[in-house]
């Protein structure tokens, strides 16, 4: 927790330095924020090129917000996640409108690092998880990813999604129930033992 607070303070200090004209602050802050936003957008969108666009747009909005940034009102990383969530939601809705066959358009999971998962069965299981995540309603998927993959705390997720903590808990619970049901339907195919 103390480390989190220190990180938040350092992010805010770098943003202030950037707003004051420090030429090195942008690089330092980008190196702290971009990998997280890029990872999140990649996991949500399943498309690396689109995720890079999202990361660039989030940072551009952050640079523009810097001169009027009020330290203490919001954490930089939370603010960046919130913008990323909104941009990803817009992209997902646009994709849903465009495509007629959703199943054919589900992207490959992760960013290539899933190759580290050993074995065909494990790979199939993660592919099934990715598919099940993609089938969740947007808010449930975002809440589950932020909580169980990004590892954020519920209050921070609540700030990102701009809902109450109880609503976050509900989104996560419903999302996990749906994921469980989706995997259970393919239990034998995925090599899980019957209960």
């Amino acid at each position, binding site marked *: 927790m103390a480390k989190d607070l220190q990180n938040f303070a350092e992010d805010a200090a770098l943003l202030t330095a950037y707003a004051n004209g420090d030429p090195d602050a942008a690089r330092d802050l980008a190196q702290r924020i971009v990998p997280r936003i890029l990872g999140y957008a990649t996991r949500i969108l399943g498309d690396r090129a689109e995720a890079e666009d999202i990361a660039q747009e989030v940072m551009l909005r952050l640079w523009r917000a810097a001169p009027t940034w009020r330290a203490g009102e919001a954490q930089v990383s939370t603010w960046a996640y919130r913008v990323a969530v909104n941009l990803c939601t817009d992209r997902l809705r646009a994709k849903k409108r465009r495509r007629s066959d959703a199943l054919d358009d589900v992207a490959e999971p992760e960013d290539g690092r899933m190759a580290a998962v050993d074995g065909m069965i494990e790979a199939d299981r*993660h592919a099934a998880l990715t598919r099940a995540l993609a089938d969740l309603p947007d808010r449930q998927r975002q809440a589950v990813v932020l909580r*169980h993959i*990004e590892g954020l705390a519920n209050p921070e997720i609540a700030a990102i999604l701009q809902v109450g903590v109880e609503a976050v808990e509900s989104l996560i619970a419903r999302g996990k129930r749906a994921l469980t049901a989706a*995997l259970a339907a393919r239990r034998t195919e995925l090599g899980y033992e019957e209960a």
Partner: protein
Amino acid sequence: MNNLDDLLAQRAAIAAQPMPVPDALMARILADAARVQPRPQPFAARAPAPAKLTFWQAMSDVFGGAGVLAGLATAACAGIYLGAVQPAALTSVTLALAGSSAVDQLDFMPSIDSLLAEE
């Protein structure tokens, strides 16, 4: 469901590793940052010191211009002149206009004695 939790935990472990950011993406982000970064405002160049004014320029500025200064000077000279020469001719002019010397007896500012006397 333990199976789901296990899969999510594996995903979280992968996500915990920093995602490599392509150089091209970082270059675009930093180019954006440089483009919109507020520039520190340079100190305004100090205005050159005003040239030293001559006495008459200073007087002209004080009274609001050379014309006003000339008018004041003329009025002052006229006042000195009238006070020095005591123009008797003006008395005859005022008598001619008023018709008599009774003009001198008009009292536009009666003293308080007359008011007190009415009680």
